[in-house]
């Protein structure tokens, strides 16, 4: 496996009205699966949006596949895939129409896209719905279409933002397996989530951010020995300093009994 860096950032920062990312330094090697973890509002989505070229103005430097994000945005976009978090797609279209449209934006061959799309939909058990409009789809069904749309051009880096939300248990296992096999074929995967469960199992390395700062970076075992605790979830609560769950639950129960 090659050891070249496919994603690097130096002092990556982003400020809206407040600072949402503060001096993030990443070095991600080809063929790695990175779990990018943090609570809501930690800056996960902002990082991904910068790395995929959606947010063009930021501070610091970043390169993807050796291209400077500011200068060669289109070159990068051609080679990466992005799966956004909140099921944004054109719902009035059918999955095949939508995927065909996406294929056109990458200048893919029309008939090839359509066969590919139909086969991928079939694998995801959406074969019977490939010609019906997505307005009627459940969240999980839309998420499957999004996953296909993000990968149909066979990208070498995949950015996933909460990719499993709404999927049923079987689909979750399927996606996990797909990601593992993608890694084996040399793809790099940048997986962002606030759910520990899956990340723990598939990631080579886990990066934890909180309030725009990177607070941990290492393999699960490394982080684990640092925190000396069993599950990643507990570790996560320890690292982000969120020990109040128990007392919050206690309060909740006692308020219910108030007269």
């Amino acid at each position, binding site marked *: 496996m090659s050891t070249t860096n496919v994603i690097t950032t130096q002092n990556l920062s982003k400020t*809206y009205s407040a600072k949402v990312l503060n001096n993030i330094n990443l070095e991600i090697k080809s063929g790695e699966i990175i779990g990018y973890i943090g609570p809501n509002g930690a800056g996960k989505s902002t990082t991904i949006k910068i790395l*995929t*070229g*959606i947010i063009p103005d930021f501070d610091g430097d970043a390169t993807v596949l050796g291209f400077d994000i500011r200068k060669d945005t*289109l070159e990068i*976009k*051609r080679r990466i895939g*992005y799966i*956004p978090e*909140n099921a*944004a*797609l*054109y719902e*009035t*279209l059918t999955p095949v*129409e939508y995927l065909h*449209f*996406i294929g*056109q*934006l*990458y*200048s893919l061959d029309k008939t090839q896209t359509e066969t590919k799309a139909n086969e991928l939909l079939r694998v995801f058990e959406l074969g019977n719905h490939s010609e019906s*409009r997505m307005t009627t789809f459940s969240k999980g069904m839309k998420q499957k279409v999004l996953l296909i749309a993000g990968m149909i051009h066979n990208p070498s880096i995949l950015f996933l933002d909460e990719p499993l939300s709404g999927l049923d248990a079987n689909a979750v296992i399927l996606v996990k397996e797909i990601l593992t096999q993608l890694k084996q074929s040399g793809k790099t995967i940048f997986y962002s989530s606030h759910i520990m469960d899956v990340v723990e199992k598939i990631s080579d390395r886990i990066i934890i951010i909180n309030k725009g700062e990177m607070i941990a970076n290492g393999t699960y075992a490394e982080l684990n020995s640092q925190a000396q605790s069993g599950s990643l979830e507990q570790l996560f609560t320890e690292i982000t300093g969120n020990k109040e769950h128990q007392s919050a639950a206690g309060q909740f129960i006692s308020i219910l009994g108030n007269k």
Partner: protein
Amino acid sequence: MKIENILLKFLDFTQGLYRTAGVNYEQLRAIVAIKLTMDNRRQVMSYKKKENQEPGNAFAMTLLIYSIFGIFVAAFIYSIPSVVVSMIFFFSYIMVMIAMTLITDFSSILLDTSDNTIILPRPVDGRTLFVARLTHIMLYLGQLTLGLSLLPSIMVGFKFGVLFLVFFLVALVLSVFTAVLITNATYLLIMHFASEEKLKNVINYFQIIMAVAMMGGYQLLPRMMGRFELEDYVFEIEWWDYLIPPIWMGGALELLHYRLIDTPHIILTALGIIVPLGGLYITNHYLTPIFNKKLSALGSATEQPAKTKEEKAQKSNLLENISLRVTSNSFERAAFELVYKILGRDRKIKLKIYPAVGYILVFGLVFMIRGKDDFSTLWNNLPNTEYYFVLIYLTFMISQVALYEIPYTDDFKASWFYSSAPVDRPGEILSGMVKAIFVKLFLPIYAVIAALILFVWGISALDDILFGLFNNFLILLIIATIGKRILPLTMAPSAKNQAGNFLRGILMLLCMALPGGLHYLLSKWPLILIGMIPVQLGAIYLILRSYKATKWSNIQF
């Protein structure tokens, strides 16, 4: 062949133009094609037929309806002898329609942020995406203008000649630009000062106005037809005319038609040419970047500054005060407060109910305008008529529409709590609902109507206003009692029975006949009228009691 395909063929003709401008034509075509497809599947708010019926060619439907409007407009142009008046009328019509459609049907596209997440991560450069959006809007407006002005244009060519028609078409294009500019500028202005939520509210009110304007135009235009024919109308230019865009176009065409070369006409013509073209330049170079920047900020969650606690407390105190006074127990109060708040907040429900306010206005005018008297004669004669009866009972429209619409909502699934909570007397919820409709919607409008009546007919109409007030509540109760009893916000909009509209109207008139007729008979004797008020209150009490006693078995689900 579908309209979209024709448009795309047309686009293919101009692809050289796009390529020289440095745009990736294949991507642009794909984006425009997909947007046209989506336009056709989008529900067009104003002409929605059945909610559960998938619209196939919604946009073509709209065009057809606009073309039918075109017949009226063409007839109107034919009937007006004065060039300038007919042209001002036509260009007002075009500009208002374009601006209104942009705001109502197109704002969802203009403010669409899904492009940000769907197209931006793909290898599409910013220029191509921007030009694709622009092309899409241009194609949409092009079709719209064609639909609106095809018949009127033929009429213009027929009436004023071919040369005039050429100038007319140039003015048409310029006026469409002007309307787009004004809309754009308005959006920017609102977005500058208001949050996304506020903007949506503003758009909601425009949609309501649009619905009323359609109805009003349909009712009033034919009645106004006769007015300009007889008078030898001379158009004199006042200073404020320079501020009204349709008058620029009218003035310019008058200059060309009669070779009327004087200062006012030259100024009007110059404004008509310079403003749209100059505005286009300014929009392109300065406003569009600002607009796009604002737009990309729309999707990201901007926290709304919460209302100060005092403001909130005051508002909820007012509602609490009212609900404590008009309701008798906690079920009724809960229903009253829920319906009261929903009537003020839910955009879809507002869009269905609030146009009734406009209809009251329109019908108020329609019934008043009779014969060929002009408006001031009618107005001066008003105190001698018994027209206030019409006004008092016309106000009932709002209650009736609200009562009909309040059971239906897209969030009907949220009504599970009616069955899970221990509600033993659903009638209390119904009565709370009726009271909320009366207090929140009817009373404010009735107050305005009452003020108008007092102004025109004087203090002697006070007894009628009072009697009418209680009568209106009585009629609302009668209709609620006779009609289907459905709890508020529990039904899917698709469950609505459209066929019953005519019967519903007849039923309403019958229910109004007895109390209204009584009012009419007794109005000669104010003392008896006032003496009857306790009888009215008694009737209200009895009906309300039986309505409150409604059992679950009588409730429709």
